């Protein structure tokens, strides 16, 4: 029997390929500027009148620009178990897209294991309510 399909916390924000997931962005056909999330109708580059966009998979690896954690349970609509387990958060620089994307850090990875400049990859994990979300996980082999 197939495992039940998990639902994403946000529809259409990332692919559901659990082995090699990607965030889904948009790329302006006129100037090449990337957008995440992908919901974009008019390019925001002030010199670009672009109105057509291609859906693109964003790079699934990047380097940590900065990081922190949530030591306290966030308010709703965040849903978490009791007792609350703190989680890491990373801002990750994607080289090709030249943008920084936030996300939680893989569960079990604390701030003490993180470093600015560290290489991370995108993974999918369930939130406490069972919905899938994207998270950043340090690569096993980190090149400086």
């Amino acid at each position, binding site marked *: 029997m197939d495992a039940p399909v998990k639902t994403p916390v946000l529809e259409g924000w990332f692919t559901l390929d659990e082995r090699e997931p990607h965030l889904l962005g948009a790329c302006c056909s006129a100037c090449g500027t*990337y957008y*995440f999330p992908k919901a974009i109708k008019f390019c925001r580059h002030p010199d670009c009148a672009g109105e057509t966009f291609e859906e693109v998979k964003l790079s699934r690896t990047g380097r940590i620009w900065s990081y922190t954690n949530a*030591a306290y349970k*966030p308010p709703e*609509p965040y849903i978490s178990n009791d007792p609350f387990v703190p989680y890491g*958060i990373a801002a990750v620089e994607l080289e090709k897209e030249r*943008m920084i994307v936030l996300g939680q850090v893989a569960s079990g990875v604390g701030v003490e294991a993180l470093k600015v400049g560290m290489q991370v990859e995108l993974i999918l994990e369930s939130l406490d309510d069972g919905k899938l979300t994207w998270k950043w996980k340090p690569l096993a082999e980190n090149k400086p």
Partner: protein
Amino acid sequence: MNKDIAILGVGMHPWGKWGRNFVEYGVVAARAALADAGVNWRDVQFVSGAATMRNGYPGYVAGATFAQALGWQGAQVNTSYAACASGSQALAAARSKILSGECEVALVIGADTTPKGFLAPQKGERPDDPDWVRFRVGITNPTYFALYARRRMALYGDTQDDFALVKVKNAEHGFDNPNARYRKKFSAQDVAASAMVADPLRLMDICATSDGAAALIVSSLDYARRIGKKDAPRVAAISTVTPTFATDTVEMPDLATDSAVAAEPLRFRAALPRKAYEEAGIGPEDVSLAEVYDLSTALELDWMEDLQFCARGEAARLVREGVTRIGGRLPVNPSGGLACFGEAVPAQALAQVCELTWQLRGQSGSRQVQGAKVGITANQGLFGHGSSVIVKR
């Protein structure tokens, strides 16, 4: 043409968590400003209110609400919303009216009653609202401040002890300020003992939200002269520029920066004072004191660099050397800053101008910055809003 306007009077309602209607605070601040200016309410020709946005909350109609509470007298009215910069935009509206000759004297006013507890988004499933989305995936306000703080630690070698020094300094500054909400001195040990909220920031590194009100009476230089206040401090610049694409910093409530593949990444915070300096025709070397938006202790260090008080990465050293303390070469947040006030959004940018005015008049008592001639404010809020105001005498 001289584009300055005069600040005839300033007034505040003390910051706190009073839980009363914001209109009450606003009237207290407005009456104090009128008395300070020696201007009769009937003579005010323009009421410029700073608003905040909360569903079901009447702060939207700030200008008219305050005008009615003070007694309708037929003045023209305006309401400005610009998040943390609402007060500066209300001031800019008053300046335009005055410089265009449409009025001579105006009341600029902002007041707030903040909700209890965590600031959280409205209920309901709203995936199109970036503010709802980021809370949904567990990104709260302190996350952003902590990311900036950690970035400083990695880039410049700042430490949590450096951040604590900012809190200690601001607590000392605000200790005697009758309008401050928190008037208690803290040691670096107190800060280090407070609970971790978002590593590396602790509870005492992050500002609270407060109730409060601030008001200004501003006029043309000619009007100031006529009522015997030709030496009143003047507004020399009001910068309310937007960011320029591509922004280099992940800003609340976004989950990503702009992509910089087709435009260079630029820092919004640095653009705000740059425009103010340009407008006033002065530079950072002319500044006697600054009131900056210390939403976190580490953010005060970012502001010092954005205000060009020192090169990138040098701010912590200036704090360690006491440069930014009252008595130092360039005091920052002599009022005590948000650390001692907590944030009352539509009133805060005006409160910063109130402090500069008292300082430039030499009326700040125990927190007086000696020989203060030029002051600058800086703040930044949601949705690309921010401001920087220069006051000189």
